[in-house]
């Protein structure tokens, strides 16, 4: 119950945010931040229960027919993520209020931000695969609006679209993968999937499931080659970047893989794919960060690198790797969140994020500078910060793999590059002489330097006293690697282990990389990686799609109703011809003897149709058509369908009036010559084919079972004797509801089409 309340209260807060901002711009973000704060405390109070044998959970049926349920469960891993989400959320909301103080759309920004928080919470707390997917898509949608917040800017719109296209495509793959998993396992409840683990890992569908799930996770977590959306998403306002692109959203994929690794993990494909992609992403992301001078982009590529590390750890699959994963994930959320917020504060104070223009900010912005310094030291993995503990564990986990020294070397390359990048973002802007851009900079309101400082200090405190977080982190690791997932003991000093050696070596080499950053940037620029990378492929496929759509639209939708009708009728005739070719022979219906009155009605129909076609007068044609329609209603009477007959009469009457009205407004000439012959051929073909099909169809034995079900249930269950009506308003009322809505929409369309244009009304 507590879990549902947590989820609902965050949703309600999101809805209220815009209103609150309208009431008070200043107080809104402060009071709004109290909600995630209290949620953090609430979630923290659930920790002991979550780490016990029976984690808190909630279950309510939602769409039981489709096995969709509102099932929530908070084990160690979920709770760790949820605490990061709400904890960071508190600081980000507070910060955003100050950062966007002058923006007219602060209200909608906070609303989307809180909706994002709610959907992220739902994602990590969900125990039903489809609920998880729904929240997953909701994070995509809300982040689309957050990235595209400055919607007047072309760049922001493009970036938002890019992030949405990439992650939503991955989301479709994920949905398919989850459904296949549910199909094989017989359940969509995540905590029950374990039982079907062997079938999911080794069954005939296992590869498809794995690839589809990986598609979802890799796109969301910006793994190579889908990494390109993350740096361009830096068009988002900085608070959104800090929240989405450092701490939470991009970790959704990692979370999903961690959640599923007890079920899907351990196979050669899983291990191979995750280690390869993770390693490439880790080294590639860190390397690419040197090609940029925009602070946020440097941070974004560094984030890509860390996401690679996390995926790599999941690929290893050992208990040690799981422990390293949760510790490193937490450490990264703290220091990267802080660095992004620092970037925002610097941008706010100086108006630029370009590294070469920044320098000497330490006197002007002492608090921001200390937050940046602390966070950068944690990023570089220096003791006594939490990042150091995380890095040691990563080295340990990769070294203990069989043949792991090679892997450890690979991770070391990534870390060396990260060590080289850390001083660029955390120290360079603050040291050295003041530059032109930073001359007038000064510390802004506490809401801008407070949150990053809190995050950075948290990283320091956890480094010095890791015992505080130990039970939760151990619980989270056990959720990934199984209940007997080994013992986690976090200390700063393990003695002189090979890990310490690797750390020291990467520090020295990282310093060298930092010193060589300018030549490195030059080298990366000459390679033109951005221009030929997957980003280019994305652009090409998007423009290709547009060209295809242009072509198809030009062909099919040239604005001529005549062509639309022609294509529609021709398509129907073509599709009907197909099954008829497979089913030749005289239809049963033709073998029936015709009664005299039936023959008479038929003759009237044929005569009226002939008149409608032959006549040169529009009015005569219209009258002949109405005769056809009225005769049809007579056919319904003959076949015992008075309801249809009644409707047909009234519809026919209205149709004639409508046609008359339309013909009186449009100049209509009867067609002639070639188009007339073509129309005649098409009409004959379509009409003949439809009649032939109907004759075949009427030969099939009628669905008496269905008819009986409706007639027998109509009276007792729907309280009506008219079966047609009870079907319409009771048994299949949802269809009717849909159709009425369609009717209303069509009518609105006509109204808008013929409405006197505003321009003409004015003149």
């Amino acid at each position: 119950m507590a879990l549902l309340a947590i989820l609902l209260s965050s949703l309600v807060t999101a809805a209220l945010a815009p209103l609150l901002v309208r009431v008070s711009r200043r107080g809104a973000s402060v009071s709004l931040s109290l909600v995630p704060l209290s949620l953090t405390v609430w979630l923290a109070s659930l920790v002991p229960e979550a780490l016990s044998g029976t984690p808190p959970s909630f279950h309510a049926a939602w769409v039981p027919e489709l096995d969709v349920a509102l099932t929530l469960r908070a084990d160690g891993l979920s709770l760790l993520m949820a605490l990061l989400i709400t904890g960071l959320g508190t600081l980000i909301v507070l910060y955003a209020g100050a950062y966007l103080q002058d923006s007219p759309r602060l209200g909608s920004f906070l609303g989307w931000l809180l909706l994002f928080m709610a959907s992220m919470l739902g994602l990590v707390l969900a125990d039903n695969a489809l609920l998880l997917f729904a929240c997953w898509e909701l994070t995509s949608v809300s982040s689309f609006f957050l990235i595209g917040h400055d919607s007047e800017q072309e760049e922001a719109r493009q970036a938002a679209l890019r992030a949405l296209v990439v992650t939503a495509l991955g989301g479709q793959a994920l949905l398919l993968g989850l459904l296949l998993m549910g199909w094989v396992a017989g359940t969509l409840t995540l905590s029950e999937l374990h039982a079907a683990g062997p079938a999911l890992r080794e069954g005939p569908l296992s590869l498809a499931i794995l690839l589809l799930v990986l598609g979802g996770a890799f796109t969301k977590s910006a793994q190579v080659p889908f990494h390109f959306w993350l740096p361009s998403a830096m068009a988002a306002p900085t608070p959104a970047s800090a929240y989405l692109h450092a701490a939470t959203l991009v970790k959704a994929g990692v979370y999903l893989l961690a959640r599923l690794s007890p079920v899907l993990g351990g196979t050669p494909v899983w291990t191979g794919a995750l280690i390869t992609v993770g390693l490439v992403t880790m080294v590639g992301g860190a390397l690419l960060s040197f090609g940029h001078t925009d602070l946020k982009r440097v941070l974004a590529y560094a984030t890509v690198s860390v996401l690679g590390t996390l995926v790599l750890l999941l690929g290893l699959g050992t208990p040690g790797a799981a422990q390293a994963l949760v510790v490193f994930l937490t450490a990264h959320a703290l220091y990267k969140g802080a660095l992004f917020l620092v970037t925002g504060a610097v941008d706010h104070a100086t108006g630029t994020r370009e590294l070469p223009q920044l320098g000497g900010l330490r006197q002007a912005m002492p608090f921001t500078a200390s937050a940046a310094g602390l966070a950068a030291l944690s990023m570089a993995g220096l003791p006594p910060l939490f990042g150091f503990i995380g890095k040691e564990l990563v080295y340990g986990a990769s070294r203990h793999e069989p043949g792991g020294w090679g892997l450890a070397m690979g991770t070391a390359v990534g870390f060396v590059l990260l060590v080289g990048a850390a001083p660029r973002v955390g120290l360079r802007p603050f040291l050295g002489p003041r530059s032109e851009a930073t001359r007038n900079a000064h510390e802004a309101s506490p809401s801008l330097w407070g949150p990053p400082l809190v995050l950075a200090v948290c990283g320091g405190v956890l480094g010095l006293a890791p015992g505080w977080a130990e039970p939760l982190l151990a619980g989270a690791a056990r959720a990934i690697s199984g209940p007997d997932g080994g013992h986690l003991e976090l200390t700063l000093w393990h003695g002189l282990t090979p890990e310490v050696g690797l750390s020291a070596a990467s520090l020295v080499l990282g310093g060298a990389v930092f010193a060589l950053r300018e030549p490195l940037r030059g080298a990366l620029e000459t390679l033109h990686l951005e221009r030929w990378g997957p980003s280019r492929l994305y652009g090409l496929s998007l423009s290709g799609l547009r060209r295809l759509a242009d072509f198809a639209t030009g062909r099919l939708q040239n604005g001529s109703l005549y062509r639309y009708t022609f294509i529609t009728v021709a398509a129907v005739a073509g599709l009907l011809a197909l099954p008829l070719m497979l089913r030749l022979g005289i239809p049963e219906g033709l073998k029936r003897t015709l009664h005299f009155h039936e023959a008479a009605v038929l003759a009237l129909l044929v005569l009226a149709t002939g008149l409608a076609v032959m006549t040169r007068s529009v009015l005569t044609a219209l009258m002949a058509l109405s005769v056809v329609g009225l005769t049809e209603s007579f056919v319904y009477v003959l076949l015992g369908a008075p309801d249809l007959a009644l409707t047909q009469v009234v519809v026919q009457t209205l149709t004639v009036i409508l046609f008359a009205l339309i013909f009186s407004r449009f100049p209509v000439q009867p067609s002639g010559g070639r188009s007339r012959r073509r129309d005649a051929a098409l009409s004959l073909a379509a009409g003949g084919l439809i009649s032939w099909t109907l004759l075949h169809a009427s030969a099939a034995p009628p669905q008496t079972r269905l008819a009986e079900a409706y007639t027998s249930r109509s009276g007792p269950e729907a309280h009506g004797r008219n079966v047609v009506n009870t079907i319409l308003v009771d048994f299949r009322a949802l269809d009717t509801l849909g159709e009425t809505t369609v009717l209303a929409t069509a009518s609105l369309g006509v109204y808008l089409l013929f409405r006197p244009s505003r321009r003409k009304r004015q003149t």
Partner: protein
Amino acid sequence: MNSVVLRTVTRQMTPVLLQLSLVLLVRGHNAPGGGFVGGLMTSAALILYLIAYDVQTVRRLVRVPPVRLMALGILVALGSATLPLATGKPFLRAAWTKLPLPWGGELSLGTPMLFDVGVYLVVVGATLGFIFALEEGEVPEGGHKEDI
């Protein structure tokens, strides 16, 4: 159309047709009829009036703009579908109640009836909307044969 005969007949016929349409609507659950036909019948009656007189007269007669009729109809239908949720039953599950009548017997009332009324309102609104738009609107530019 300025025809005395038509106008006289219309004045007599329209109330009859409107009543007939209501009868169709109400009896639809047990005999041929229903919200759809009833709605069409109402529109037909009003359109007859429109032919005899003009759009303004019919608009005055109906009072409610067609768009609002449609909106009201969808709301009524949705409302009848949502009503069962209040008693914990699924969306669109029919709910029935019986009212004793003062002269004996009882009246069976249910959400499907309300749903039918919603359909009726949408149909009247939609068809009247069509006709009004065609009558009052302007001809789009370039009335070519192939454009219709």
